[in-house]
């Protein structure tokens, strides 16, 4: 029975037995009893504590670093600085790697407030902190720039002498790159429009805000081999990056992913791991580094802030004739803001003949941005969805009808070029329109907003192993760290394929020495890609079990098929044999040829984009500018919801992160370029009492690229909220909000200006 296991065979319609139910997750008990071990929860005998000294300046030349006094302090076992991080060949040839190295430990210059400049390892935390105070760093403070628009100005302080979009043609600049997406003729399109709306927007830099600070424990032996335990979205990425940065053989470092206390993209990069390994190597002892919250805000994440301009034109009947956008994203002190993806995602919900999006990648004296849930898309969507609703209003068309008229559909050409396969945007719009929420009355000072969102979703390198145990249970080892309950989905898919009980499968995250390479858990890929590999591994197990049954029965392998969790004879020449269950064959594995396992290693592709439509009711206090989200509904296409409760959880979590970004979250800098709100007190993520219940509608339009129809769901949910809330707030306030966060001072100012303008017009 040959099985094509290299590539997915596409969607197969079926009735599910386990998939689509809501079983308890395999790691659940550990997580409700405090037993689960996260990044900071492990120790090693003889362990030292590491701590990192960070620049207090936004931009400064580091003239000298004197570590003598720190090294002399009793209990200090190692101190590292830039001198301990030579630029190895692999780094020299790769600008991306070089940037990571420089971000982990500053070289000639400190590029932002919080940039690491030295680190110590000592026998306890208090001594380590004391030692940091003894390190003497001489800085020459330089001019700095924080804002993306100011960074593009001709007289802006320049961060890198060897960077600039026009580098080679002229002088260096803070513009690291330009991107352009689109097709058709936008000028002709605008000329054909009856109504055109254009606006400029700004968005603040939002941090991923995971509750678990970065933590790791490195243990490197005198032979140069070692182990690293850390909380990360991708331990294989950590292994490869750390070894390349430090000039080690990849095989000399085994990385184990701890339980991870949230990531949202922010843990797809390394920050402290190379430092811990360098300290451990130097001290000859295990070294643990745990960031504090202040460090998390100053030196990891956030996503880019943006300055945006959007123009859309339409015919009187609502048909869009042209759409244009200019996106300027600052991604902190190094190139690589997610503006490319912002430009591609900006108009991805619409079926447009004439479309263009131009983006600039800008560097500023802020921490190096890290991916944040659908990187680059939410800010672009905020601007685009604001303009779409304004245009719909101007034409007197219901905002959902306007979107339906112009929505991207099955096999339509996407705004970024390629032709879509089967997609579920229209279904989400129709479902949204039919909700009780959309048809309910509003109270005074309230407004309702809708917005759509899109995310690509990715597959990527994935390897899983499924080992059958003698008692008929199975152990599934996957290589994508489980951030939000993905192990439950893997177990469900394996049980579905094998025809055994969900509870008979236990999933773990394998370390880097136990599995083939796995890409990070990003791009909403874990349930899709590891799930795909799990299905294929399970099919391999079934194939092998059928072969064992054939041996037992003495019939050809192709005369056995798998049915209802058992091998059964099949075909005219198979003979009459009682079915052999999964458990029966598992028990006889040793006698029939040895252990039974399934593997699958794949570069999974075909994730299929996911679309969403959100509805929000917001109320504004006209005297204080404070906004209250009264009601919220997420409608999103999941393809197939493997574990609907965790799918809803992704919808709700993304929506609430979007609410935070829309209303209060932002990086606030002093005029010296120092981050002023580096803590949960003043970086205001939503608390429980800020929110209503988040209603959810799961749309299931099967992804043709997955046997169960699964699409990634994790990221799309953060794309529509800011636009939806801005539309609701603008309706309630009767003035268009163009800056997020729509914090009370900003909103009150807008209301007052609008009142003054109205009075002047009278």
């Amino acid at each position: 029975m040959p099985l094509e296991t290299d590539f997915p065979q596409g969607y197969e319609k079926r009735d599910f037995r386990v998939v689509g139910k809501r079983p308890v997750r395999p790691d659940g008990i550990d997580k409700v009893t405090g037993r689960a071990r996260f990044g900071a929860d492990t120790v090693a005998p003889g362990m030292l504590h590491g701590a990192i000294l960070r620049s207090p300046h936004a931009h400064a030349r580091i003239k000298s670093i004197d570590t003598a006094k720190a090294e002399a302090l009793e209990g200090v076992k190692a101190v590292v600085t830039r001198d301990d991080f030579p630029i190895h060949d692999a780094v020299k040839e790769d600008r991306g790697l070089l940037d990571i190295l420089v971000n982990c430990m500053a070289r000639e210059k400190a590029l932002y407030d919080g940039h690491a400049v030295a680190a110590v390892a000592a026998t306890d935390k208090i001594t380590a902190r004391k030692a940091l105070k003894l390190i003497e760093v001489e800085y020459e403070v330089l001019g700095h720039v924080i804002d993306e628009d100011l960074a593009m100005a001709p007289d802006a302080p320049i961060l890198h002498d060897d960077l600039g979009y026009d580098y080679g043609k002229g002088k260096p600049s803070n513009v690291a790159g330009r991107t352009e997406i689109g097709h058709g003729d936008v000028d002709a399109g605008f000329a054909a429009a009856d109504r055109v709306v254009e606006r400029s927007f700004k968005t603040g830099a939002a941090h991923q805000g995971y509750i678990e600070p970065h933590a790791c424990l490195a243990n490197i032996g005198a032979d140069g081999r070692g182990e690293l335990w850390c909380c990360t979205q991708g331990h294989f990425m950590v292994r490869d990056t750390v070894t390349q940065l430090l000039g080690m053989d990849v095989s000399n470092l085994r990385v184990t992913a701890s339980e991870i206390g949230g990531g949202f993209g922010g843990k797809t990069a390394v920050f402290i791991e190379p430092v811990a390994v360098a300290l451990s190597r130097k001290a000859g002892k295990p070294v643990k580094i745990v960031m504090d919250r202040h460090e998390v805000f100053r030196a990891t994440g956030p996503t880019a802030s943006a300055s945006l301009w959007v123009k859309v034109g339409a015919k009187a009947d609502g048909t869009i004739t042209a759409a244009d956008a200019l996106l300027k994203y600052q991604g902190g002190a190094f190139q690589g803001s997610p503006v490319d993806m912002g430009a591609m995602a900006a108009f991805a919900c619409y079926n447009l003949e004439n479309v263009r999006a131009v983006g600039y990648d800008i560097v500023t004296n802020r921490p190096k941005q890290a991916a944040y849930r659908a990187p680059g898309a939410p800010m672009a969507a905020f601007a685009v969805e604001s303009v779409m609703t304004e245009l719909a209003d101007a034409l007197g068309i219901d905002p959902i009808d306007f979107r339906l008229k112009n929505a991207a559909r099955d096999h339509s050409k996407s705004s970024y070029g390629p032709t879509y396969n089967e997609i579920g945007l229209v279904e989400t719009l129709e479902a949204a329109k039919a909700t009780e929420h959309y048809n309910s009355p509003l109270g005074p000072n309230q407004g309702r907003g809708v917005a759509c969102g899109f995310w690509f979703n990715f597959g990527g390198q994935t390897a899983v192993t499924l080992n059958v145990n003698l008692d008929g249970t199975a152990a599934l080892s996957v290589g994508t760290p489980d951030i939000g309950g993905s192990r439950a989905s893997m177990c469900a898919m394996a049980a579905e394929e094998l025809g055994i009980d969900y509870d008979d499968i236990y999933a773990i995250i394998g370390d880097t020495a136990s599995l083939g390479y796995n890409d990070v858990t990003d791009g909403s890929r874990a349930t899709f890609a590891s799930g795909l590999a799990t299905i294929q591994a399970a099919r391999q197990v079934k194939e092998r079990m059928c072969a064992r049954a054939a041996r037992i029965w003495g019939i050809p392998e192709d005369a056995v098929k798998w049915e209802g969790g058992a091998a059964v004879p099949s075909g005219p020449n198979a003979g009459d044999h009682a079915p052999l269950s999964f458990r029966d064959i598992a028990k006889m594995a040793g006698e029939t040829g040895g252990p039974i396992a399934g593997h699958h290693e794949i570069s999974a592709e075909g994730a299929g984009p996911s679309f969403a439509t959100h509805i929000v009711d917001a109320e504004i206090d006209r005297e204080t500018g404070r906004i209250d989200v009264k009601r919220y509904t997420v409608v999103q296409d999941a393809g197939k919801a493997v574990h609907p409760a965790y799918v809803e959880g992704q919808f709700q979590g993304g929506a609430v992160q979007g609410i935070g970004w829309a209303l209060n979250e932002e990086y606030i800098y002093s005029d010296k370029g120092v981050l002023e709100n580096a803590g949960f007190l003043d970086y205001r993520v939503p608390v429980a009492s800020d929110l209503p219940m988040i209603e959810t509608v799961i749309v299931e339009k099967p992804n043709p690229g997955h046997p169960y129809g699964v699409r990634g769901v994790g990221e799309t949910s953060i794309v529509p909220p800011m636009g939806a809330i801005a539309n609701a707030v603008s309706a309630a306030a009767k003035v268009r909000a163009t800056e997020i966060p729509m914090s009370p001072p900003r909103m009150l100012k807008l209301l007052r200006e609008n009142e003054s303008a109205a009075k002047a017009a009278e």
Partner: protein
Amino acid sequence: MVQVTLWGSLRDYTDGRNEVEVAGDNIYQILQNLGQAEPRLKPILEKGVTVSLDGQIYRQNLMQTVRPDSEVFILPKMAGG
């Protein structure tokens, strides 16, 4: 030959063209041949791009078969969160 569409800003490296004809039976060959035909694109292709083949996004799987009538787009490198 396969018609390959480049994302807008790559026009800067192809004398204003964003559609080019390239030979190749899979994504890898297409990228190799594109780099040879348009040497100024080579460093960008080597740094990493995403390929859309018949509407499907490929970040890595370069061995995917490309037919003469395939729809091929070269897009910026993508990552998720």
